[in-house]
């Protein structure tokens, strides 16, 4: 085998190994492998308090990811937060009286939107809105209520 051919093979192996490593980082380490590339339709949901919900937080139904939070903004008219949910288009049969709530994964985990399907025959369409929502659980409020309840018990 000639010298140049040997060099060519070695350099080729090096480049291939480098690209394999990049591919590994893309598919195995990052979210590119699990990222949803298909179309999605947008649905609005208004919450009194979104807590720690962020753009790109998952939207789940029965624990399965069916979409992502695309945008979050504050509506100055009714003093509520609006979360725009991007639901993947293959989940196109979600009833329009579905209940959206903000849940927390684990005790201190990240927050996500959980959908509980309603019983309506009509389904959510692009640009639709989820009417019934439940805000994020804010720990301070819960503790406050607990202390208030205790104080009332003591007063009796």
């Amino acid at each position: 085998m000639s010298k140049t051919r040997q060099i060519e093979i070695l350099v080729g192996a090096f480049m291939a190994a480098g690209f394999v490593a990049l591919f590994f980082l893309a598919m195995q380490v990052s979210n590119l492998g699990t990222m949803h590339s298909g179309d999605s339709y947008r649905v609005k949901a208004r919450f009194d308090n979104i807590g720690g919900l962020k753009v790109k937080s998952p939207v789940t139904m029965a624990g399965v990811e069916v979409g992502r939070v695309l945008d979050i903004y504050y509506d100055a008219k009714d003093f509520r937060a609006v979360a725009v949910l991007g639901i993947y288009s293959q989940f196109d049969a979600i009833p329009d009286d579905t209940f959206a709530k903000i849940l927390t994964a684990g005790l201190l985990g990240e927050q996500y939107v959980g959908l509980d399907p309603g019983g309506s025959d009509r389904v959510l369409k692009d640009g639709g809105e989820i009417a019934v929502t439940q805000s994020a659980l804010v720990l301070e409020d819960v503790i406050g209520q607990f202390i208030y309840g205790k104080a009332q018990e003591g007063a009796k």
Partner: protein
Amino acid sequence: MTDWLAALGRIGLAFSARLGRANLLMLAMLRGLPALVRRPRLLLEQLLSVGVLTVLIIAVSGIFVGMVLGLQGHYILSRFGAEATLGVMVAASLVRELGPVVTALLFAGRAGSALAAEIGLMKATEQLSGLEMMAVNPQHRVLTPRLIAGIISMPLLAAMFSMLGIYGGWFVGVGLLGVDDGTYWAQMQSQIDWNEDIINGVVKSAVFGVVCTWIAIFQGYDCVPTSEGVSRATTRTVVHSSLAVLGLDFVLTALMFN
């Protein structure tokens, strides 16, 4: 007093002149790109000495850095009962910081010093002048392939470093310390972002590749053509590259991950 001022001025002028020469050299090397396209063989040889021969040290250090991260991460995270996030910690620190930075430091030590010594000796033994006598532009013929080889090699080496480091952390965390295999990878996949983390890491390592190779080539090309000059050029290459990498790392991190 005036002597002191004059000395300061001399240092400032010498520094500016070096900076200017380095930039002119970069321009000259970039002008050699069309010639390189016609002679890809030159690049191949440089990829061998700059890239392939650096793989071993990168691979070994990648595995060990990953193993240490797994061990230390597990020790700290288990205090909070958060061993499940070990994969995220290992992968994020490798892909964002340690991969590009440690690879660049090792690259400067292994490939940069060799480049500077080789070019410095070519200058000292008047091979570069010899090429010029034969009407071959030594900057295009000798320097451009080395620069491009460095720029191509660095991101690939950094990716290998990160990959092997993640497996090193996996070996210690999952294999020895009993973190669950599924959570190690799943947490990593949900937290590491392709654009935010991986692409930025690749951009970082490409920038480090440009800087390290540029410094090495300039130091070799600009050295005093004696054995002492070559030895000083080699030392300076490693010192300047390391400082440049660490300083630039802060700037790039502040720009990209704000």
